[in-house]
Each structure stands twice: as structure tokens, then as C-alpha cells.
């Protein structure tokens, strides 16, 4: 790749930008933390009680005769934390002249001692080169007779022990690096995840919309290629579907003629069988059209009584002579496509009644799902076939299905309808027979 070809909006460019950005962010964050930490980690001198102590000491020293003062000062010095010294005049104070009269803690001191001259010394600010030889923080306060008392601290006191402090800063560096790296790489991988999600969606739904190409050059190329492939497959599927739909449609006219001609067959048994054949072909055509056109998809979602729908399907099944029991709420509001769901539930219940005899239907809800279970008393389906039966035109043991009709589209249609609602249909064997479980995601289900 030549330098001129090296554009920023490529995967490599994105990675470079991301890494640079990540490093910059880490550096900035840590600089900020160190700067702020040195402020808030330092104890507040006003709240430490040190000033009150200083005030008391100062008054005590002031009350002593001048000769006693050095001894007094030495006596009250705490050599661990701070030193107290008395000087007869300002010139004796080992501290360069300072105009830091207005120190941050002057106010509280004035409250305790009344208005006085005060000078503070900060070895970093006032004397960076250390020329004065004074390396401690120091506060000098003038007594009423013009002499001076100084307070100095040997070390700068941090809120935490230095080791702990370094540990905290180190942990923060690590933590912020992880956060910045995670954010940056999520940003980098977002287009890739979109592409992966689009591919996955297309696998489940052939009508999935095209993906909008965005992100680094290489990924945009991949996305466009993916869109083209998806478009070709969709056209292919559509052509096939249209052809099948047209054939199914055209079969209706000859079937109507056959049905009408059947009226002139004298032998009753033959006539009955011919009508049954026509009915079977008609239901096959309807099933094929329903599956390939997905005729539920043009139905608008609406609020409806799902429990009422299930009971209607059960009533219809009972009218056809099935033995079906129901356990569940009498009403359950759900938002979805009732005609499509009725078809799905009818298909599942039809299978149960056909192969399983006595059937029990259960409807219940948990936090996330509406669950419909259709339990039959039949032979069940071997575990190895429990997914295969959802393939279009799959017909189990041919002998079993030949006699009972069906095109092998009932389960695939049911599954595609339920998946269209964001749900799932699975089969499993129970002690009694087969259990078909239909799960619908709850968004608006309410009893």
C-alpha cells in the first residue's frame, strides 16, 4: 500500500486513529487525576484542628515573659509533626520575606487571634530553588510586642500514605486504559457487528432489509458485497415463490371444474373420495401459498385476546371431533397478528389431534413470555427428528403421512409465523407424548 493510497477511512486508518485516541485519552485522564488528586488528597488545614492548636499555643507563648518564650516554644513543639520557634524580630526568622499575607487559612486564624501580621512560606511556590535553605512549610505570626512565633512542618502531609497513593494512581491508570480501550474498540468493531448481525438476520429471515454501508472502506466493500448477494438470493427466492404461487393459483380453475364434474359421478363412494381429494388439494394449495407468500405478513399487528383465540381454535378442533382440554386464563391481551397466529396454533393443534389423540392445551405467562403448550398422547417424535420436522415438505415416515394428508408445511409455517413475532416453537417428548411449546415474547401481554 503506497503512502498516497493510505486513506484514513480504512480499517488500518480507523485502528490507528483509535489507538492514538486511546493513548491520548489515557494520558489526559491521568494528568487530570494527578492534578486533582494532589488537591483533594491533601487534608484541609482548617478542618484539621491544627489552627486552633496554633492559636492556643500562640496565646500561651504570648502570655509568657520574653525570656521564657524560647523554652516554652520548644516545650510545646511536637517534633514529629511540627516545630514551634520564637524569634525576637522578623529578621531572625529563617524565612525569606513573603507577601503571602493572605493565606487560605488566615481567616480562621484571625477569628481566633484577632487581626495580626502573618506570613506563610511554601517551599515550592516561594523559593523553588531552595536558596533560602528553608525546605519546610512555615507560618510566621507576629505577637503583640512585635516578636514572632513560627510554626513549621517537617513534611507535607497527604491524606493517604505515599505507597497507597501510588497504588491508587496505578490502578486508575490501568482502569482508565481498559475503559478507553473498550470504548475505542467497540467503536471500531461496531460496523463489523452490524455486518454480522445482518448476516445472521438474513439467515433467519429471507426478507431482511439491506444493510446501510458505513464504517471503514474494507467493511463498506464487504457490506456492499453482502447486500448484492442478499439481493440476488431474494430475487431468486421471489422468482421461485411467484412461480409457485402462480401455479397454485392456476390450479384452482381446473380444481373447480373437477369439483363440479364430480357432481355427475353416480357411485356415491367414488364421489365422496373425489371430493375428499379436491379438498386435500385445495388445502395443499392454501398451505403452499400461505407458506411461500407468508400471507400473515401483510396483516397489521393489533391488540387482541390471545386466550380467546386459543379457545376458538380449540372449539373448532372439538367441532371436528377432537378431544381437547384447556387450562389457562379466559382472556389474555396480546399485541400481534391474530390471523397468522391462529393459523400457527391451528397447525400445531391439528398435528396433535391427528397423531396424538387426546390433547391438552396450556396457556400461561411469565415475565418475559407467553407460553402455549400443546401436549398430546401420541407416540412423540424421536429427538433426532425434532428439528428436521420444521423443514418445508418434510413428512416424517411417509406411510404415516400419506394416509393422513398434509404437505409438510404446517410446522414450518407455524414456526415462521411465530418467529415473525420474535418468538419460537420447539418440540419435545413428554412421558405421555409430544409437547409443542410456543413462546411469544411479552411486550404487551396482560391478563
Amino acid at each position, binding site marked *: 500500500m503506497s503512502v498516497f493510497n493510505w486513506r484514513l477511512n480504512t480499517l488500518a486508518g480507523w485502528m490507528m486513529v483509535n489507538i492514538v485516541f486511546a493513548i491520548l485519552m489515557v494520558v489526559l485522564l491521568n494528568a487530570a487525576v494527578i492534578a486533582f488528586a494532589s488537591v483533594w488528597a491533601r487534608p484541609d488545614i482548617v478542618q484539621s484542628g491544627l489552627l486552633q492548636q496554633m492559636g492556643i499555643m500562640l496565646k500561651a507563648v504570648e502570655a509568657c515573659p520574653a525570656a521564657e518564650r524560647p523554652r516554652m516554644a520548644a516545650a510545646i513543639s511536637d517534633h514529629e509533626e511540627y516545630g514551634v520557634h520564637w524569634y525576637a524580630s522578623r529578621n531572625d526568622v529563617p524565612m525569606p520575606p513573603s507577601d503571602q499575607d493572605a493565606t487560605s487559612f488566615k481567616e480562621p486564624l484571625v477569628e481566633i487571634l484577632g487581626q495580626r501580621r502573618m506570613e506563610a512560606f511554601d517551599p515550592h511556590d516561594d523559593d523553588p530553588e531552595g536558596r533560602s535553605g528553608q525546605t519546610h512549610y512555615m507560618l510566621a505570626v507576629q505577637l503583640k510586642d512585635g516578636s514572632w512565633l513560627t510554626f513549621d512542618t517537617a513534611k507535607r502531609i497527604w491524606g493517604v500514605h505515599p505507597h497507597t497513593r501510588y497504588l491508587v494512581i496505578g490502578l486508575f491508570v490501568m482502569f482508565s486504559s481498559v475503559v478507553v480501550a473498550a470504548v475505542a474498540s467497540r467503536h471500531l468493531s461496531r460496523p463489523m457487528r452490524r455486518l454480522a448481525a445482518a448476516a445472521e438476520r438474513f439467515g433467519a429471515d429471507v426478507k431482511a432489509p439491506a444493510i446501510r454501508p458505513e464504517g471503514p472502506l474494507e467493511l463498506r466493500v464487504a457490506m456492499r458485497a453482502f447486500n448484492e448477494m442478499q439481493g440476488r438470493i431474494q430475487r431468486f427466492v421471489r422468482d421461485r415463490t411467484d412461480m409457485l404461487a402462480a401455479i397454485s393459483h392456476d390450479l384452482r380453475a381446473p*380444481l*373447480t371444474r373437477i369439483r363440479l364434474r364430480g*357432481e355427475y359421478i353416480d357411485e356415491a363412494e367414488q364421489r365422496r373420495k373425489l371430493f375428499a381429494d379436491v379438498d386435500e388439494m385445495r388445502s395443499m394449495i392454501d398451505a403452499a401459498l400461505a407458506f411461500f407468500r407468508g400471507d400473515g405478513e401483510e396483516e397489521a399487528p393489533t391488540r387482541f*385476546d390471545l386466550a*380467546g383465540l386459543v379457545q376458538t381454535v380449540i372449539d373448532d378442533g372439538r367441532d371436528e371431533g377432537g378431544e381437547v382440554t384447556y387450562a389457562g386464563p379466559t382472556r389474555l391481551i396480546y399485541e400481534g397478528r391474530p390471523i397468522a397466529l391462529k393459523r400457527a396454533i391451528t397447525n400445531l393443534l391439528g398435528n396433535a389431534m391427528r397423531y396424538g389423540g387426546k390433547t391438552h392445551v396450556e396457556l400461561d405467562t411469565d415475565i418475559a413470555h407467553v407460553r402455549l403448550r400443546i401436549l398430546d398422547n401420541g407416540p412423540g417424535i424421536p429427538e433426532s427428528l425434532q428439528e428436521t420436522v420444521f423443514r418445508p415438505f418434510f413428512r416424517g415416515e411417509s406411510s404415516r403421512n400419506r394416509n393422513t394428508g398434509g404437505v409438510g408445511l404446517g410446522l414450518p409455517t407455524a414456526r415462521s409465523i411465530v418467529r415473525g413475532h420474535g418468538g419460537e416453537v420447539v418440540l419435545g417428548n413428554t412421558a405421555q407424548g409430544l409437547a409443542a411449546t410456543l413462546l411469544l415474547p411479552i411486550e404487551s401481554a396482560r391478563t
Partner: protein
Amino acid sequence: MRRILVVDDDEEIGALLRRFLERNGFEVDVASSGVAMDERLARGSYDLMTLDLMLPGEDGLSLCRRVRAKSSLPIIMVTATSATSERIVGLEVGADDYLAKPFDPRELLARVRAILRRADAALPGPTTGTRVAVRFAGWQLDVARRELRAGDGTLVPLSGGEFDLLLAFVEHPQRVLTREQLIDLARGNRHEAFDRSTDVQVSRLRRKLGYDATAPELIRTIRNAGYMFAVPVESA
């Protein structure tokens, strides 16, 4: 003798339907296009027409709209799809009923008879308004879409038989209907799914209409007579 006009571009189907209906006591003419239909209608009067939706030239929907604008001739729409949308459109342009190919000719016969009976029986037929949508006691029944909705818009699913029964009630409100009349009226809309006794269908329908417990009893049992739809119905 009752006269029926069959409009279908499939000549064989036309001939077979003619033969079937003639055998069942009707006088039948066949037209294979909109133009032929116009000629037939201009020359004679008919009691009922079956109309195929897919015709060469002017299609069935347009013909239906045109005929309905001039007369109240009962029309049964016959189509090659069972898609809900086509049924809705068909009923909305004024067809009295709808049948998808391939149909059971005896179902056609049942519907023809029901519509004719309605046209001249003691029971007045439904006004055109009720063929689209009606309201009663807070419920809304969309006849074309075959949808029953509660006051809050929630759809309450009905089976084919329950819908036909409710439609029979709604088209004859506040009037005592015998079980036989109900079977007749409801069968006109649907043939097979009415095998269950009327009482079972009524109890299922009551269960669904009892959805809103505050509503008054909608379907009242009239001892030794039948049932009555107890609330007024207005077109929506």
C-alpha cells in the same frame, strides 16, 4: 323460476355451473365478460348474479361497483384466491357474499338460496350499511374484515360459525329469531362450520361477548321461541 346470471371467463366452469344450478331448479344464463354481462342485464332481469373476480377486460370489482350503483341485484363474488384482502374489497364494493375457488357447489347453492330467501322472506334483508361495519353496546363489528372489537379496540377472535351467528343477530336486532331462522341466516354465510347445534354456538358467542362484564346481556333466550339480540345496532 328464479333466474341467475353466471359471469365467468372459464367457459367450462360456466357451463358446469349452469348445468348444476339448472338441475337444482334455477334458470341460468352465462356471460364470459363484462360486455356480455351488460348485454344480458339489459335484455332480461335476474334474481342473483355470481361474478368472477378475474375477467378479461373490465375486472369483477369494477363490474360489481357498476352494477351495484344501478341496482340492488344480489351478487356473489367468486375468486381464485382466499386472501382476506380480496374478500374485504369485494364486500366493500357491494358484493353480498364471497366464495373462493375451488368451492363446493352445494355451498354455492346454500348461499344462493339464503340470499334469495333473505330478499323476499318475512325477514327484511340487511341494509347495505350493515355489510361494512356496525356498532352495538360498545362493540364494533367490522363485517367486511370479519372482526369483532371491544370498546378499547381489543380484537376478540371469533370462529367462522360464531361470526356468522353474530352477523345474523346484528342484522336482525331486537327481534325474536327461532333456531331454524338462525341456522338459515348463518348458513347463508357459511355452510360447513355450522354443524354444532345453535345452542352451543350461542353459548360460545355469549362467552366472548361477556368479555366486558359490565355490558348488558346481549343475547337473550326467549323461552319456547329462540333467541333475541337485545340491544340496538347502529351502522358505524
